[in-house]
């Protein structure tokens, strides 16, 4: 497993000091999720891989890990989609454009995009799982010529909980991506698919198992069922990727909180190959 080394991402001589960054825009996505556009103090790109995360700090309150949901190809800023879930995220939700947060990172091991170059890509996202892969989606669309076929399946619990609605509309219209959505619980206006995300597999054309890279990000319950579908289409385990979530404090492989069996999710993950995960009993439960 690769252990990335990139000490330049820390300020001064402390691993734990965040650097100030300005929120330049806040967009309300759903009742509980906002999209934050953030610019580092002094500007400059964050320099991340899709799938990596940052530790977002509010000094005096605390810190929490959040996936970067914009593509590294967008240089001037980066974006975070943050769900109100507890103490820190609650306070982040009280902030507006112009306010400051602290940022540590990028941290963790993301998607190694060069491994995907030249391949067909299938992304299956459920719920908040769309956030970490949005970075990859944007990257693929920005660098479209480097990839083969691109299938994107996205399931949300209800239409109101569907994230990135503007993106969703754009992706629907975009010929460069074979995009399908579904919701578990439709409302009156919903005219799309209903059912869990695996039901969208019927929308897929025949896949070329050895040329397809499959990426699965979503809640643990979804994960198992999607893996079955993907492996059922003969995609080799080494070509299946997923992203794990764990409690995290330090984000740099010291504090022990994110350990799942013998991996540190913040170092070796959050993005893993399914092949690697299989051995981890705790990872997939």
């Amino acid at each position: 497993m690769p252990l990335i080394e990139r000490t330049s991402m820390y300020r001064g001589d402390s691993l734990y000091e965040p650097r100030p960054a300005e929120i330049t825009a806040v967009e309300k996505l759903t009742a509980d999720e906002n999209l934050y556009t953030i610019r580092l103090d002094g500007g400059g790109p964050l320099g991340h891989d899709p799938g990596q995360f940052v530790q977002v700090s509010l000094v005096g309150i605390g810190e929490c890990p959040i996936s970067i949901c914009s593509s590294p190809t967008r240089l001037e800023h980066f974006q975070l989609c943050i769900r109100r879930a507890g103490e820190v995220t609650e306070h982040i939700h009280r902030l507006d454009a112009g306010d400051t947060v602290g940022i540590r990172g990028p941290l963790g091991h993301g998607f190694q995009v060069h491994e995907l170059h030249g391949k067909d890509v299938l992304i299956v996202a459920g719920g908040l799982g769309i956030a970490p892969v949005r970075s990859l989606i944007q990257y693929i669309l920005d660098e479209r010529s480097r990839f083969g076929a691109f299938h994107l399946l996205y399931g949300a619990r209800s239409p109101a909980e569907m994230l990135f609605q503007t993106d969703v509309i754009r992706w629907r219209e975009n010929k460069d991506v074979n995009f399908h959505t579904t919701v578990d619980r439709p409302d009156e206006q919903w005219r799309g698919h209903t059912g869990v995300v695996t039901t969208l597999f019927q929308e897929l054309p025949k896949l070329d198992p050895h040329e397809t890279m499959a990426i699965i990000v979503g809640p643990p319950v979804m994960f198992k069922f999607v893996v079955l579908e993907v492996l059922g289409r003969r995609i080799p385990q080494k070509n299946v990727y997923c992203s794990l979530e764990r409690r995290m404090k330090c984000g740099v492989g010291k504090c022990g909180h994110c350990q799942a069996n013998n991996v540190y999710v913040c170092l070796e993950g959050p993005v893993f190959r399914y092949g690697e995960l299989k051995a981890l009993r705790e990872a997939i439960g």
Partner: protein
Amino acid sequence: MRPRIAIFSLTSCEGCSLAILELEDQLLSILDAVEIVNFREGMTERSWDIDIGFVDGAVSTPEDKREVEHFRECCTKLVAIGACACLGGLNTLKNYQDEDEYRAYVYGDCAKYFPTTPAQPISAVVNVDHELPGCPMVKEEFLKFVTFALAGRTFKLPEDPVCVECKKKGILCLYEKGIICLGPITRGGCNAICPSYGAKCEGCRGIVAEDALKAAGVNLREQYDVDLADVLADVRMFGAYQEKTLP
């Protein structure tokens, strides 16, 4: 706007209210940061427009019940302070005795003038927003609570048992001296003050988790040959014992 604070007492020793006055080093900063608008023990003025009301004491009379209901109405946030208010405290020891008998024992013929009810934590009567247990409450925790409130943060009680604090302080575990200590099953946050002064933890901050109490039932009988009745008596001292959870 500084939050408007009140401090009330029900059936208690008022040690918890007093503990606030024992924050001598911080008292002036506290008075800068909040406005105390109702505190019978310390001031004459009284207002009933209250943001945060702290209550020590258990509910053990019909009058207590009326009072705490009144506090609830007047306070945006109601905080139980001390073992009495959070768990019922020592007052609950009377609940295990016959009411007529104990009333007569203390007040003789005059017992009829002292209406009493089984002692209860205030959460048994009204909705409580936060609890700061301990006998007395841990004054540093009170300070932390106030700081959190000022910062708009939600205060959460520590979820680890007292033993964690003994280890952090590097003190000798009382079990090594053959003393049965309630630390492993008691909610920490007191900085292990009793073991630090050579005395066993008496459980005044309540039980940390039900599974710990279950483990105690197994261990003390099987590993230490302790009479369960004695353990029960220990855990009852501050009202921490919950009948249904013991094996």
